[in-house]
């Protein structure tokens, strides 16, 4: 896995914030909101996958269930 995902999340965060500012300055507050939510959902998908892997590893390590 490495640090790739962290850098990806940081990159997406920076770009989404630029999106948000550009759309807000253009008077499209609703689109800016939707864009921020879409970015959040995208990052959440990655994080959920990583968390799932973490829980599987914990199950294997501690022999749970």
């Amino acid at each position: 896995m490495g640090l790739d995902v962290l850098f990806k999340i940081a990159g997406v965060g920076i770009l989404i914030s630029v999106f948000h500012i550009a759309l807000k300055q253009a008077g499209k507050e609703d689109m800016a909101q939707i864009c921020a939510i879409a970015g959040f959902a995208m990052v959440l998908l990655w994080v959920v996958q990583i968390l799932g892997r973490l829980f599987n590893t914990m199950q294997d390590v501690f022999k749970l269930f």
Partner: protein
Amino acid sequence: MWLKLAGSVCVVAAGASIGFKLAMRLCERPRQIGQVISCLAALKSYINYVTMPLPEALKKCTGGMRGPVADFFHRTAQILEERGWVTPGEAIEEVLASSSGELALGRHEHEILCVLGANLGLVNREEQYKYIGMVEGQLRMIEQEAARLRDQNMKMYRYLGICGSLIIVILLI
């Protein structure tokens, strides 16, 4: 690695070019509306004071102007000269349909020009003069609105083009 880098550069270049193209079109719109207004002012004078035939007036009203707007008036004049049975309205509609890619005019301007064409050459000089004046006024209002939209959205399209392509690159890598 190099293949990924080359692909990423291509995606960013494509996204940025789309964004810049949209921004350019937005920037071009008020300029073209201004050109149409100045052509109509000249056309008004040619119709009312010089009583010039319509195809000739349409050719001369561009007054050395170049670009898609001048081409629009020239092509309309050409159609009217070549095919005598075509009405000015039909000629304008035909040229607008064929040059919609070059002209950065919106739906409102298209409608106004079509209505102008429908009334051109059908009524007497004074009525045409009044009608073109009214169309000029409408186009001035649209020009102001287009300039406001340009100031508001030009930067946004550029940012969205570049940042959108960067997000696609991040997602694909």
